[in-house]
């Protein structure tokens, strides 16, 4: 429908979609993250075995994606809090750009340190 198309071409729709998708993916990742850290219950060697496994390029790629997802969910969430609790509605597009820029900056910082 035309109204659906117009709504979905709006940047705020994409901000909503990214926030929702990143939230779901992060929630799915959390049990794996907790399981990995739980390897420390088997001593330093147990955790190190997992960390050596995570040295693979594909896992590094996935880690970078996760950092981007976390940064995107954080900045998208801060944008929502600002919209709901502060009178900044005219700055909406500015906040979207700031959220996107901050997300990419965090991802780049992670990659440069990797």
């Amino acid at each position, binding site marked *: 429908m035309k109204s659906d198309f117009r709504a979905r071409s709006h940047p705020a729709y994409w901000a909503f979609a990214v926030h*929702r998708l990143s*939230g*779901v993916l*992060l*929630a799915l990742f*959390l*049990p794996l*993250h*907790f*399981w990995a*850290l*739980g*390897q*420390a*219950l088997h001593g*330093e*060697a*147990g*955790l*190190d075995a997992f*960390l050596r496994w*995570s*040295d693979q390029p594909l896992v590094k790629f996935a880690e970078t994606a996760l*950092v981007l997802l*976390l*940064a995107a*969910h*954080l900045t998208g*969430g*801060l944008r*929502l*809090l600002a919209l*709901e609790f502060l009178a900044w509605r005219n700055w909406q597009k500015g906040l979207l750009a700031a959220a996107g820029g901050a997300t990419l900056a*965090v991802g780049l*910082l*992670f990659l440069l*340190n*990797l």
Partner: protein
Amino acid sequence: MTSDGKHSVRTQVLLWTAQRASAVVLAVCVLVHLATVIYAVRNGLSAAELLGRTRGSYGWLGFYAIFVAAVAVHAPIGLRSVLAETFNWRGTGLDITVMAMGLALAAWGLRAVYAVFI
């Protein structure tokens, strides 16, 4: 409005408040976590370095316990909205499912916090 309606509105307000309050806590926790992750990977991750920072540290124990508690509140409420809107799922079954998710996340998360502390 029926008593069920009042209950539903009260539940929605409670969930909305919990979601926003946990979001504020998580904003701080995630900023610290991202900064720590970026710092920690600079020379490659090692169990010795990671555990050297967290073992016996009551500061990190408290921080990560708060982090896990906020996640265990925030994630299930978010998933509840996604499940309700995507699958048109409402009612007690949904509430029990997301409550179980929250409890499981809290248990797994606190287990992980304990694992890197002892």
